[in-house]
C-alpha cells in the first residue's frame, strides 16, 4: 500500500497520476470522462491500473459542486432573512456583464422568491440586538417549511450576524430539531463577513449543494468500496487543500473550484523546485484556458469569486481566471470584417475539423495543423490520427472570406487566440500592478505548450516553463496537496484607538477554529498557522491583504503594521496618505497540515543528448522554416537547443520559435526563453 493516486475529473478526460512512494515512480494516464456519471470514469481508470491493490490514498478533484450550480441541479432551498429583507438575493448589487446588451439576462439566484421567508428580529450596525428573536416564530416557520415537500435545505442569513451570531445560532438549533431531514446552512458559519448579499449568496450556495453533494459523495464511497478500492479518499477544495468526504459534505461550498486548483498547486511545486519566485500559470485545454499566479512561491487567493455573473461565493478560493479560449475555439468573421476566435468552441465532440468527427468549423487546433505545429500522425502520442485535409478545408473556408492565403489565415487564427490569452494574462498581472518581466510563464494543459513561446514574446515575459506531464498537470498537483483550512472574520477596527486586545482575542479564536477543523478531519501533524489582515484607508471599499507574523499585534509592533500598510498602498496604487486612519476590515487565519511529499526524480544525466527524430516545415510569423522535432523522453538534463524546434510528447507539443532557446533542467522541465 504505497501508492498515492491523484484523479482530476474534467469535462472531456479524467486524468490519473499515480506516485509509488516505494519505487519513486510516477505514472500518468487518462480515460474519457462520463459526464452523466463521473464516478464511472474513476472506476474505469483504476480498473485497468496494475497498482490498483496498492493504492494507499486517493485524492480527487471534482466538478460535482460546480456542475450542480451551473446546471441548476441542486436542492430546492428555503431562504430565511431578517424581516423586511427577503428580497436581498433578488435585488443583488447591480452591474452588468454587457453594457449595451439590454437583452442580457442575469443568472438567477439559487432560491425561488416563493421560498423566501422573514423573521422579525434585528441586529444593528454595532452588533446590538434591537429586536429580539421570537423562538415561537422560528418554530412556526419550521412548520411552514415542512409543509412544502420540495424544500430540502434551508439557508439563513440575518443582518449583521457576523457581528452578533446569537440569532442565527438559535435559528439553526431550532430548525435542526424541527426539520431533522433538512440541510441547514447559516451565514455566520459559512462566511462570517460583512455585506448581506454576498454572504447570503454564499450561504445559499452551501445549502443548495448540501443534499446533492452529500448523496453523490456517499454513492462515490460506496462504489469505490464495491470496486475493491478501500483506500481513504479525500477531495480537493477550492483553496487547493484536501478535505475528507465528510467535511466536504458538511460544507460543499468549499468544492466549487476543485479540479483547476491542482494545476496551481503543482505550479507552486515547480516554483520551489526551479527556485522561481513568481509564476503566471496558463492551463489551456480544449474549450477554455485558466490563468493564475504564484507570487513569492505561494498561490494567490481571491474572496471575490463569482460562480456565475453576479452570484458571488466569497470564501477564499485560489484566484483562477477562466476565458473561453482553447484548442477547440472556433474562428469566425464579425460584421466589421474582423477575424475573431472563440468563445464558441467545437468542444470534444465534434471537436476541431481535424478530429474527423464531423466538425467543419476552423478551430485553433486546425490552424496549428495547417501551420505544421501539430503532426496529424503523432497527436496524443499517436493514439489519435488527425485529418489534415479536413483541417485545411476548414481554414480555407475562412481564408476565402478574408481574401488571405491559407497559411496567413491559420497564422492569424493562432495570433488572435494568443491575443485573447494575452488579455487574460494582462488582467492577472498588469491590471493588478504586477510586472510581466518579473514572471515566468508556466504553460500546461494539452494546448498550453503550443502557445507558450508566442505568449512570452507578446507579453515581454522572459521565460516559459513546460512542466512534466503537461496534459495531466492538475492531477499531478493533487499528489502534492496539503490539508488546508482558511477562516476569515469581519471586524471593524481603526488604527486610531486600535483595540489590540480584542483583535488578538479574535485572532486566537480563529486559530482555534482552524485547528479544530483540521483535527476533526484527523490532520494533526506538521501543522503551520499563518495570519493576515485586510486593511484600507478609512472610507475606502477595497482592502489590501497584509500577511502578519504571530507577534504582529503585540503592542510594541503595532505601529509597524500601519507603516507596512502605507507602503503596500503606495506600491500597489502609487500613493499613500500618511497619518490617515486605517481600517482593519477582516482577520484571516490559515492552518495547513503538510502531507507526505513525493520525492522529485532527477533525469539520468549520463544519457547522450537527444537527437531530432524528424523535421517539419513550420510556419512562423516571418515565414516557413525547417524545424527539427525532438521526442521529450530523449532530452537530457542541461541540454540546450536553439529554436526553432518542436518537442513532442504523449499529450502535447511544445513550440520553440526562431530566436528562442530551449534548456532542459535536471528535473526534465523545458525552459524556453529568448536568446541571451
Amino acid at each position: 500500500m504505497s501508492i498515492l493516486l491523484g484523479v482530476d475529473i474534467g469535462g472531456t478526460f479524467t486524468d490519473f497520476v499515480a506516485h509509488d512512494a516505494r519505487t519513486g515512480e510516477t505514472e500518468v494516464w487518462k480515460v474519457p470522462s462520463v459526464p452523466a456519471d463521473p464516478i464511472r470514469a474513476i472506476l474505469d481508470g483504476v480498473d485497468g491500473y496494475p497498482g490498483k491493490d496498492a493504492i494507499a490514498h486517493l485524492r480527487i478533484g471534482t466538478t460535482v459542486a460546480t456542475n450542480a450550480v451551473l446546471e441548476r441541479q441542486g436542492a430546492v432551498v428555503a431562504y430565511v432573512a431578517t424581516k423586511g429583507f427577503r428580497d436581498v438575493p433578488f435585488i443583488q448589487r447591480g452591474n452588468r456583464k454587457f453594457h449595451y446588451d439590454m437583452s442580457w439576462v442575469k443568472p438567477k439566484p439559487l432560491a425561488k422568491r416563493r421560498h423566501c421567508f422573514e423573521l422579525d428580529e434585528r441586529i444593528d450596525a454595532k452588533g446590538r440586538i434591537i429586536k429580539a428573536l421570537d423562538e415561537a416564530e422560528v418554530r412556526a416557520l419550521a412548520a411552514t417549511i415542512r409543509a412544502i415537500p420540495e424544500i430540502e435545505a434551508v439557508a439563513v442569513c440575518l443582518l449583521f450576524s457576523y457581528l452578533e451570531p446569537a440569532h442565527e445560532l438559535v435559528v439553526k438549533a431550532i430548525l435542526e430539531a424541527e426539520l431533522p431531514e433538512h440541510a441547514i446552512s447559516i451565514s455566520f458559519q459559512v462566511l462570517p463577513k460583512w455585506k448581506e448579499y454576498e454572504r447570503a449568496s454564499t450561504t445559499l450556495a452551501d445549502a443548495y449543494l448540501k443534499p446533492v453533494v452529500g448523496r453523490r459523495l456517499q454513492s462515490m464511497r460506496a462504489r469505490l468500496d464495491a470496486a475493491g478500492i478501500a483506500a481513504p479518499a479525500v477531495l480537493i477544495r477550492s483553496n487547493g487543500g484536501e478535505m475528507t468526504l465528510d467535511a466536504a459534505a458538511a460544507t460543499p461550498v468549499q468544492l466549487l473550484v476543485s479540479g483547476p486548483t491542482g494545476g496551481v498547486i503543482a505550479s507552486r511545486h515547480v516554483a520551489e523546485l526551479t527556485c522561481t519566485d513568481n509564476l503566471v500559470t496558463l492551463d489551456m485545454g480544449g474549450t477554455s484556458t485558466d490563468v493564475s499566479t504564484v507570487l513569492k512561491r505561494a498561490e494567490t487567493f481571491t474572496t471575490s469569486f463569482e460562480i456565475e455573473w453576479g452570484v458571488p461565493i466569497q470564501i477564499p478560493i485560489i484566484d483562477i481566471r477562466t476565458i473561453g479560449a482553447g484548442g477547440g475555439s472556433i474562428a469566425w468573421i464579425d460584421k466589421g470584417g474582423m477575424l475573431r476566435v472563440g468563445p464558441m468552441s467545437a468542444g470534444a465532440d465534434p471537436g476541431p475539423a481535424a478530429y474527423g468527427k464531423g466538425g467543419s468549423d476552423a478551430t485553433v487546433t486546425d490552424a496549428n495543423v495547417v501551420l505544421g505545429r501539430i503532426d496529424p500522425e503523432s497527436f496524443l502520442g499517436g493514439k489519435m490520427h488527425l485529418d489534415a485535409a479536413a483541417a485545411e478545408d476548414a481554414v480555407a473556408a475562412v481564408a476565402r472570406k478574408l481574401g488571405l492565403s491559407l497559411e496567413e489565415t491559420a497564422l492569424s487564427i493562432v495570433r488572435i487566440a494568443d491575443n485573447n490569452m494575452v488579455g487574460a494574462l494582462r488582467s492577472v498581472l498588469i491590471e493588478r500592478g504586477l510586472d510581466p518581466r518579473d514572471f515566468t510563464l508556466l504553460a500546461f494543459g494539452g494546448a498550453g505548450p503550443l502557445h507558450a513561446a508566442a505568449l512570452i514574446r507578446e507579453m515581454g515575459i522572459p521565460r516559459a516553463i513546460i512542466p512534466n506531464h503537461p496534459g495531466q498537470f492538475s492531477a499531478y498537483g493533487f499528489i502534492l496537496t496539503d490539508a488546508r483550512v482558511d477562516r476569515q472574520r469581519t471586524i471593524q477596527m481603526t488604527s486610531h484607538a486600535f483595540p489590540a486586545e480584542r483583535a488578538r482575542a479574535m485572532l486566537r479564536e480563529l486559530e482555534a477554529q482552524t485547528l479544530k477543523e483540521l483535527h476533526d478531519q484527523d490532520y494533526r501533524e506538521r501543522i503551520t498557522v499563518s495570519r493576515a489582515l485586510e486593511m484600507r484607508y478609512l472610507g475606502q471599499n477595497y482592502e489590501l491583504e497584509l500577511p502578519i507574523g504571530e507577534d504582529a499585534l503585540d503592542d510594541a509592533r503595532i505601529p509597524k503594521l500601519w507603516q507596512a500598510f502605507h507602503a503596500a498602498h503606495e506600491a500597489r496604487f502609487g500613493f499613500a496618505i500618511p497619518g490617515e486612519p486605517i481600517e482593519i476590515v477582516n482577520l484571516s487565519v490559515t492552518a495547513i497540515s503538510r502531507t507526505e511529499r513525493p520525492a522529485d526524480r532527477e533525469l539520468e544525466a549520463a544519457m547522450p543528448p537527444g537527437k531530432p527524430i524528424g523535421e517539419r516545415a513550420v510556419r512562423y510569423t516571418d515565414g516557413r522554416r525547417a524545424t527539427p522535432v525532438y521526442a521529450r523522453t530523449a532530452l537530457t538534463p542541461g541540454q540546450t537547443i536553439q529554436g526553432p524546434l518542436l518537442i513532442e510528447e504523449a499529450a502535447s507539443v511544445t513550440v520553440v520559435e526562431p530566436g528562442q532557446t530551449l534548456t532542459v533542467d535536471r528535473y526534465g522541465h523545458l525552459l524556453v526563453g529568448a536568446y541571451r
Partner: protein
Amino acid sequence: MNDATGTDHGAPAMDYAGWERAGVRMALISNRIESIARKMQNTLFRTARSGVLNTAHDFSCVILTADCRLLGSAESLPIHTLIGPDLMCAAVRRHHPVLRAGDCFLHNSPYEGNSHAADHCLIVPVVDDGGTLRFFVLAKAHQADCGNSRPTTYMGHAVDVYEEGALIFSAARIQSNYEDNQDLVRMCQARIRVPEQWWGDYLATLGAVRIGERELLELGRDLGWDTLEQYTEAWFDYCERKMMAAIRRLPSGKATVHSAHDPFPGVPDGLPVKLEVEIDSEHAMIRVDLRDNVDCQPCGLNLSEGCSRTAAMVGIYNGIIDHSVPPNAGSFRRIDIQLRENCAVGIPRHPYSCSVATTNLADRVANPVQRAMAAIAPGFGMAETGPIQPPGMGVISGRDPRTGEPFVNQIFLGITGGAGTPETDGFLSIIHVGNAGLCRIDSIEVDELHHPIFVRERKLLADSEGPGRSIGAPSAYVEFGPIEGCTMQVLYTADGTVTPALGAAGGLAGCVAQAKKRERDGSLTTLPACYGVTLEPGEYVVSHSAGGGGYGPPTARAAERVLNDVMEGAVTPERAREIYGVVVAATTTGFALDEAATAARRAAMSGETRP
C-alpha cells in the same frame, strides 16, 4: 459629430497588407487599450474614499486621441462618456495651446462639455518623450459634494448656476510637472463640505489618469507612435463598419415622439420634450433632431451639450440591439444629433443651471428614442426605463453622532427601472437609462456602518411591473431614517411621480415613483417630487422607485411565464387575469394555470382591442 462624408456610403476601404487584413494587429492593440482603461477603472474603484465612487461605482475612465476623439472606455457609464470627454479635451486644448508632460486639468464646466458640475474630471494630456501630444486620458468621478448651496449634487430647484452654487472649473491646471497646484486644492477644500473625502477621491482619480498616461506612453514606445496612430484610424473604420451593419438590419423610417419631465420647481407645468427620429437604413445613418424644444429653464434640469447628445445616442445604442458595436468616434460617424443653442435639451446658455443634467431630463431624451426605434423597426428598440431619482437614491447629509463629523453621500438603496426589450424582461436594477445598470446597489450593512442611517425595509412591490410580452422592472420600496441622536436631510429629485416610463410596441407603462414621510405615529405624508426632507430619529422616508415600461402586448406574454410571475409573488392572480388574460387557480401548493379559461379570456380581450 456628423462627419460622415455624405457621399461614400460604403464601408471604409481596408487597405492593409497581409494578415493585417484579418485585423490581427488591430485586435492586439485594442486589447491593450481596453486593458489600460480597465486598469484606470480598477485604480479609481479600489482607492476612492466616497461611497458614491467606491460602492456605487459612479465614475468613468476614457482614452481619447490627441485630436479629442473617443477611443476607448472600459466599464464606464454611458451618460458620462459618449460625448463630453471629446468636448472637454477640446476645451483643454483651446485654453492651453501648449500642453506638457506632467500637466493635469480639473474640469467640470457643463458649459464646456462636462455632464454636470458634480462630475469632476481630471484630464491628462499624454505627451511623448519628444514633447508631442499623443492621447488624452480622462477620469470623471461623481463627487459626494461639489460645493453646492445645499448638501446635494442634484440642485433640481436652482434657478441658475449662482443659486446652484457649485465651484465651476474650466480646464484649470491642477498639476504642472506632476505637482499639485495648492491654490486649487485649497479652493476645493474650503468650499466642499467633506474636504478629506474630496481629497481622497482626488488622489484616487489622479492615480487613475496617471496610470493611464504611464501605460499609454509604454504602449507608444513598444509599438511606435505611427503604428499606434494607424491602428487608431483602422479601429475607427472597423467600428464604423460594425455600426453600419447594425443599422442596415433595421428598416428606414421616421417617427416623432413626445415625452415630458414632471412638474418641478421652476417648471410648474412640467417640461415637454419632442424628438424627431429617423432611421436611414440605405445610408446607414440614424438622426435625432432635438431642436424643436423649449429654451433653457430656470431650474437645474437643463441638459449640458454632452448630456443632450449622449442621451439621444444611448437610446440609439440600446435600440439597435447589437452590443458588439463599440461605442466610440468610429461608430459615432453613423449618428447625427441636431441641437440648438439655449435649449433645455440642447446646448445650455450660461448661467442656466445644468445641475441635474445626467439623469432626469436626459432620460426623457434617451427613453423616447428607444420607443421611436421600436415604432419604426419592429423587434428593435426598447420600452422606456424608469425615471429617477426617488429618495431611495437621494443624497443624505447631517452630522454623524457616532463621530461628531459631518457626512454627505449619495445612497443607492432602492432603484430599479429596467425596460422591457424585444426578447427579455427589463433588467431589475438598471438604475436609469444613462447608467446601463453599471452603478452598484448599496449593501444595507455597509450603509448602516458608514452612515448614521437605519434601513427599516427594502423589497420589490407586487403588481408594479410594466406589463408587456416582456415586462418592465417592478418598483423597489425602501424605508429608512436616521439613528438615535441624528438629524438627517434627504435631498432627492424624483421624476416619474406623474409621467411613468411608457411601454413600446403595445407594452404598457411602468408604475410611478412615490416619496413619502412616515411620521412617528406611523402615518404617511406625501412629499413633493423635488425636495429635501429633514428627518428626526423615529421618522423615516419612504421611497417607491419608478418601474420600467413593457415591450409588446401583455396578452402575448407566455401564460407559463405569467403563472411563474404569480407563483413568485410579482403579479397577483387578479392582475394576471385583468392585464395578461391569464387565469390561474389556487392549489394546495400554489397556483395552476387554467388553460381553457385563459384561452377564453385572451380571445375576449383580443376582441375588445380589435378595431
